[in-house]
């Protein structure tokens, strides 16, 4: 019998449909059905100025907007032969790491709620709000920031930001202890999650699974270490790994990643305190400014003579390894933009970590995968 879990189901965390073939309570097969959130972001990008695509990136993954902005910006700058000032690079890294914290807290909240815990859900949402407050203080938005620009970032950080951010980090550092006690300290949690949804490292590689799911199977792979982009080369941090590849291992990896993010952020904030400077590259082509149409003859000539290029970037997004491929054919719009979403690959492997378990195991397993449908469907 085929059972539809979705498109509206508390387990889905977004709009998609998990069709499972069951015999009694046992899962025999499954077939995720995507596309309910397909907005054609790749197609719309072909009709936008380079900076206007950033607006779409925030909507790609609505809990990790900054990571997607960063991904696109790195590829677009490569395609346009531009580079940002160093301070802008540090600010972007800070944005991405805060976003990782925000995204993982959102995952924690959703995941513990899936297995029936209500208080940790409220704690995590409360702490995530502190990060959103920080975002609001320098971008004006809590979810869709539109902050990064080709060639830098929109504006510098407000005065006193570093101290406020450090306060949030200190608070989070304390709270992680509570989070762990609430989950790992609970026998009910351990019995529910240990040995559930196991995905081996071999299957991970074969099916293209990346991110915390891959690291929870014991593979030490992180784009930030393996192929450092932005300023990650200058930062000191460890890659979180765990063994087992089950739901508990994924929990451990994400919790450790949050601690490492706090460690990275302390270094980045210190650097930003001592290195003032410009945050947007000088001498950007005038037609690049999104709200301004090419002005007069000069802008037109610049646009026509602009060299072609291709950009490829790979970023460790909170869910895994995201990639962007941007083709610049000399026009004011990108000719083609292609994104690789990590959740897309993690979800395509569903058969490997669902078959053989029970229907009641689906919410904790899918909760541990950390699904964001916005970036799967794009």
């Amino acid at each position, binding site marked *: 019998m085929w059972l539809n879990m979705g498109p509206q189901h508390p387990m889905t965390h977004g709009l998609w449909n998990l069709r499972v073939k069951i015999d009694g309570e046992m899962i025999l097969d499954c077939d995720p059905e995507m596309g309910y959130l397909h907005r054609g972001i790749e197609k719309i990008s072909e009709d936008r100025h380079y900076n206007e695509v950033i607006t779409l990136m925030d909507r790609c993954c609505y809990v990790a907007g900054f990571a997607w902005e960063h991904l696109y910006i790195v590829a677009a700058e490569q395609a346009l032969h531009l580079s940002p000032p160093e301070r802008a690079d540090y600010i972007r890294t800070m944005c991405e790491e805060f976003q990782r914290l925000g995204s993982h807290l959102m995952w924690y909240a959703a995941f513990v709620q899936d297995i029936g815990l209500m208080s940790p859900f409220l704690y995590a949402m409360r702490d995530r709000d502190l990060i959103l407050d920080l975002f609001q203080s320098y971008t004006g938005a809590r979810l869709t920031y539109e902050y990064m620009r080709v060639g830098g970032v929109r504006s510098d950080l407000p005065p006193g930001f570093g101290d406020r951010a450090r306060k949030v980090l200190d608070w989070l550092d304390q709270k992680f202890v509570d989070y762990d006690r609430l989950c790992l300290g609970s026998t009910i949690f351990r019995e529910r999650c240990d040995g559930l949804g196991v995905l081996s490292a071999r299957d991970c590689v074969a099916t293209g699974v990346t991110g915390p799911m891959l690291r929870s199977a014991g593979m030490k792979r992180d784009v930030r270490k393996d192929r450092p982009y932005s300023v990650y080369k200058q930062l000191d941090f460890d890659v979180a790994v765990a063994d087992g590849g089950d739901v508990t291992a994924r929990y451990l990896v994400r919790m450790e990643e949050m601690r490492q993010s706090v460690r990275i952020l302390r270094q980045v904030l210190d650097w930003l305190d001592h290195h003032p400077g410009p945050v947007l590259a000088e001498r950007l082509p005038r037609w690049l400014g999104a709200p301004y149409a090419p002005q007069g003859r000069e802008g037109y000539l610049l646009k026509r003579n602009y060299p072609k290029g291709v950009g490829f970037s790979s970023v460790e997004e909170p869910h895994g390894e995201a990639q962007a*491929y941007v083709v610049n054919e000399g026009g004011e719009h990108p000719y083609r933009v292609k994104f690789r979403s990590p959740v897309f690959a993690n979800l395509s492997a569903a058969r490997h970590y669902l078959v053989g378990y029970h229907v009641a195991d689906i919410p904790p397993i899918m909760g541990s995968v950390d699904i964001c449908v916005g970036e799967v469907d794009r």
Partner: protein
Amino acid sequence: MQPDDLAKALAPRLGDRLLGVETFVGTAGRVRFRPEAALDLFRAVRDELGFRHLSMVGGIDWVDHREVFYVAWSDDARQYVILSADLPADSPHIESATPVWESANWHEREAWELLDIGFDHHPDLRHLLMPDGYAFHPLLRSFKLHEPEELEVKQRSV
């Protein structure tokens, strides 16, 4: 790994079906090949060069032809490689990479429905993001954003 290393390793396997290896910023190189060499190349790249992790499959509509590209990662070399083939615009099709890299499955389904690239011997080539029976390929340049199309969508049988 440099583009020259890639060319040296692949040339004996592929002969003149290998069209060249270009430098590509941030990767080991961009391998251009004839579509009929697809499976041989995929196997050589995965088994001999160690690119065991296929990250994505994408396509580009160049109007006069269509390009399909693959991005793969090697844990030993800690590098990406890009494989790219040009397909004729009138009947773009290539051998499916799914038997070699299982992860190609969904990416090829997406490239097929959005760009009308056929993947021969794909185990499960059906719509992924678009509804069943959707007759258009939105990422083609001929699909204009500002002209709404009339859609007739078949009901999916459960």
